[in-house]
């Protein structure tokens, strides 16, 4: 794929006219997907795709397009030439873009990951064997993922990574299930077996009469996967400079009011220790770290090149939506092993689901408990809890009502596959919270 991208990049660059500049991006993958239900295969298949992004620039005028590449050299050249010609014609009438900003300092990088994946049918065999005797449902995805950048100034950036991501549930009955994942770079059947045995053992905890509780305020423990759902919502309009300037940020009270989180809350975009590409779509190399919230106070925005130009600040390589891709929270001081004891009486929530803002300026969000959520008394799991809706502000759950974070953090590789397999990660602790508002 790298050769294919650089070859067509050279072809396009060689045909530029006058003072034109071109920026080219590449997103590709060769993926195998197997989804299963009741520990049997529902759909299995392979997807090969290669998507070329073209931004043709003349002065402050530019025009963008995306093109699916077929892999057939001459055909791809012909289609790319036609698209570039269309963009060139467009430059004659589109207005100058005052917010256009692209990297002019050449910083080429290359990161090529090793292929330590098992053949897909072998992985499938291990997954079905491990799920034998269980009502197992989920998806396994694996294969190489590619990201590339090239411009006519001579910069070349490349990331290739071979990853797998198994995401599954063992269901006991109805909506009572243990959700698990096994993701990484090197397939290890012994590690998979351990994960599946552990999930199976947890299933027994659900085999009790479920508890139904009334709406009200409860002490809760959010496991790292549940915390991931909360911070994912924050990534949707919380940290971006544009959203703050447009007054639509969910964290506007932190930058323009007196909103603060608990001093234990430090959040950062940690590209240096994440799995995503360290270059953006305009050619800027990202800093290793951007501290978003430090000790409860807003520190830095995510700043895309467009926002940087619009608001006169430096970019830090954020994408168009100014969302984090390598998100992490600092750890706290509660040993995870003591989380149940410190919870005393309340809810142990492994997973949250379908979060959305219910009052965006107040950063109040609603969502549901899901999968293995337990009612706890005197530090002991009593049994599974029927699903409950919460509606709570970040300033309470990660602010005035936060008791503490766990001392250990969990690395979570994103498993999103909308359009293509995502390359993103989270490193998160669990959170112990008082007076968490359940509404339905």
């Amino acid at each position, binding site marked *: 794929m790298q050769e294919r991208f650089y070859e067509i990049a050279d072809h396009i660059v060689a045909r530029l006219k006058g003072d034109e500049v071109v920026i080219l991006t590449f997103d590709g993958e060769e993926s195998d997907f197997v989804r299963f239900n009741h520990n*049997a295969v529902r759909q299995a298949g392979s997807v090969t795709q290669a998507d070329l992004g073209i931004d043709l620039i003349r002065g402050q005028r530019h025009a963008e397009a995306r093109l699916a590449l077929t892999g057939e050299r001459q055909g791809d050249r012909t289609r790319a030439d036609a698209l570039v010609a269309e963009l060139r014609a467009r430059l004659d009438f589109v207005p100058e873009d005052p917010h256009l900003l692209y990297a002019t300092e050449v910083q080429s990088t290359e990161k090529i990951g090793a292929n330590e994946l098992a053949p897909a049918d072998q992985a*499938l065999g291990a997954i079905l064997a491990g799920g034998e005797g269980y009502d197992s449902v989920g998806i396994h995805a694996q294969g190489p993922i590619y990201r590339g950048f090239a411009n006519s100034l001579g910069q070349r950036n490349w990331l290739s990574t071979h990853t797998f991501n198994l995401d599954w549930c063992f269901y006991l009955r109805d909506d009572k299930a243990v959700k698990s994942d096994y993701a990484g770079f090197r397939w290890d059947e012994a590690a998979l077996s351990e994960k599946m045995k552990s999930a199976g053992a947890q299933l027994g905890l659900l085999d009790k009469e479920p508890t139904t509780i009334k709406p009200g305020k409860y002490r809760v423990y959010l496991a790292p996967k549940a915390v991931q759902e909360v911070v994912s919502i924050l990534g949707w309009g919380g940290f971006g400079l544009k959203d703050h300037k447009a007054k639509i940020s969910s964290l506007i009270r932190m930058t323009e009011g007196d909103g603060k989180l608990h001093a234990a809350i430090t959040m950062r975009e940690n590209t240096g220790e994440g799995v995503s590409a360290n270059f953006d779509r305009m050619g800027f190399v990202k800093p290793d770290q951007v501290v978003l919230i430090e000790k409860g106070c807003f520190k830095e925005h995510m700043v895309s090149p467009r926002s940087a130009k619009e608001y006169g600040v430096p970019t830090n390589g954020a994408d168009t939506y100014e969302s984090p891709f390598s998100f992490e929270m600092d750890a706290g001081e509660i040993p995870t092993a003591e989380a149940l004891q410190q919870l005393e009486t309340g809810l142990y929530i492994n997973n949250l689901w379908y979060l959305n803002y219910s009052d965006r300026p107040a950063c109040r969000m*609603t969502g549901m408990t899901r999968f293995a959520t337990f009612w706890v008394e005197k530090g002991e799991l009593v049994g599974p809890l029927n699903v409950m809706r919460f509606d709570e502000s970040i300033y309470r759950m990660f602010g005035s009502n936060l008791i503490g974070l766990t001392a250990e953090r969990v690395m979570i590789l994103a498993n999103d*596959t*909308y359009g293509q397999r995502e390359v993103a990660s989270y490193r998160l602790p669990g959170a112990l919270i008082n007076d968490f508002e359940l509404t*339905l």
Partner: protein
Amino acid sequence: MFEGLKQRFHDVLPASGFCSLRAEHERTEMIRVRQNVLQPIQTSEDEGAMVTRIVGAGLGYAAASDLSTEGLRRGVERAGYWAEATARKSVFDFSRVAMPHPRGEYETPVAKAWDSMSLAEKIAMATRECERLKTDDRIADFEAGIWYARTTTLYLTNAGGEARRVTHRVYPFLRVTASEGTASQTRSLGALGICRQGGLEILDGAGFMTDGPQLTEEALALLKAPNCPSGKMDLLLEADQMHLQIHESIGHPLELDRILGDERNYAGTSFVKPEYFGSFRYGSEHLNIVFDPTDTQAFASYDFDDDGAKAEKLYLIEKGILKRALGSTISQARSGIPGVANSRADTWRRPPIDRMANVNLEPGNASMEELIGAVERGVYMRANNSWSIDDSRNKFQFGCEYGRLIENGKLVGVVKNPNYRGVSQTFWNNLKMVGDASTVQRMGAINCGKGEPNQVMRVGHVTPTALFTEVDVFGGE
């Protein structure tokens, strides 16, 4: 489009078993003007094909952009590999499914073609509508735009199936945010849900060139408005909220793949059980829900679905009683439950799954005045801005951009941050009145997420305004 593809496909057909090719080309354009600055126009040329094979009991897929003979041959081989590798490990003996072999052609009727106006003219139009949104210093952000997609699909099967489809879709949007201090309020055109099939004529009916100034006025009014009150009361929902209420609490729970458990790891399950079909009281007698892919102006219309099944209008819920599932050919074969032609994939990259197309509420007899007049104390809400529902599609919560109190049969003051929550069956059984045809709007969504691997689907909902009783309503902080 797809010249010679049929021959190339037939050149590489396997000797036995079912085999189909779903080739798709899509060109999209997005024109967006934010704060009077034209954002980079997003043009996309996407093309590829999905090969589906049934070999023995197994089902396999392979997708790629390479539509050459060799590319198709690789796809047929890879799909066959997966079918054979999973034949004795599958949820169902797929050889028992009678896959359709459709023949036909479909194209969205268009009154004013997208290309009848130059790109420069369309930019000028979006810029003009954007400029009209900024009438006050408190307007912090504002944008106007138009998205267009022309999708050409060719579906071929090994037994002579050949269905060609060209759809044209237009999605206009306006959005304005007013701000004062740390408070902000946003209004948008149809809650960003006016998505339809057709051409530029859609802009006229959508209010794209008329409604901007009113949206700005409403955003400014919301800044000064009190919060929506809390309590159980009547709730009158405009079509630009109703469409999402239908989508989340009727459409998704009726998807047969959820009922069969396929989506339990991601999108979720359903409170609807297989034995409910034919007898379950889903809602009041005013509730009539149809699956209608034949409305040529609705967003998700077609003649055949992505597995070749003939699309037709069918009742899902009639006078409140559940009749039929949103289940495709394969799901019907697996479950024995009656379904519809709703096997759909978001692009050539993904295999089709059970999806909504147009899931619509049939209009009733009440005018808007009669709906308002029937309320002693309640809230009128419009324009969805928040949605959340549990994984079995039961406990939901929605928020809207704009609310007005209704007292003694009259609309009174504006309220901000209107929200409500409820449980699906209870809520639909509290459906008291349904608006007549004059209240109907064609709405839709461009971003319905579901499936593993994930798919983002375009769905349509044609719905009138509707009135509910005893709803738990509340406001913001």
